């Protein structure tokens, strides 16, 4: 079974600073996808960034980037120049190529002005 672990229940960052959220996963698959989703208080899950396991290059989306370490099964999210609107729950997720998605327990990010 595939599992996703987020070891940081809560994190905080000063506005304009950088923060890294951790995620590890367990799988025996070689072909899979990893995701970071953001869930603000509105409950609407929003895809932040996605990484294909076969790609060595780390994905980036504006201020969001990942550090994908396939051998270590680690997938951390870095948020640069943090903004107040970044405050939310962040979920790491895993999906095999033709299967459903499994989520971690989430990290609550607080951004201090």
């Amino acid at each position: 079974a595939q599992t996703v672990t987020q070891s940081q229940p809560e994190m905080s960052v000063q506005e304009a600073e950088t923060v890294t959220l951790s995620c590890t996963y367990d799988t025996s698959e070689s072909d899979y996808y990893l995701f970071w989703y953001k869930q603000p208080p509105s409950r609407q899950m929003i895809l932040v960034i996605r990484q294909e396991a076969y790609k060595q290059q780390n994905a980036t989306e504006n201020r969001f980037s990942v550090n994908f370490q396939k051998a270590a099964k680690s997938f951390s999210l870095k948020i640069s120049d943090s903004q107040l609107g970044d405050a939310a729950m962040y979920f790491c997720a895993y999906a095999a190529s033709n299967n459903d998605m499994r989520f971690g327990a989430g990290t609550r990010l607080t951004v201090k002005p």
Partner: protein
Amino acid sequence: GAGVSQSPSNKVTEKGKDVELRCDPISGHTALYWYRQSLGQGLEFLIYFQGNSAPDKSGLPSDRFSAERTGGSVSTLTIQRTQQEDSAVYLCASSWKSGGAYEQYFGPGTRLTVT
């Protein structure tokens, strides 16, 4: 275009009653997923539908839970004889096809409270 919609947004029910939660996926999306999110927890996979294939029900927690998808579009999640531990937010998502290669788009969820 319209996103995934869910109704009702909030539902309060008495223990032992049956409830139906509805999900309208994005038009053209063949895959539809149901998740449960308990307070302060991550998302727990319940069931997914892919086209006309038999659904993957491996995440349903008990036989009190069932789901249907009519005409390959709207889906209904039914919980019979609700228990207090069923209280949670139920999220629906759809994607063009099932599998990690295709982004899942989520609805706003239904918050179920069993009293």
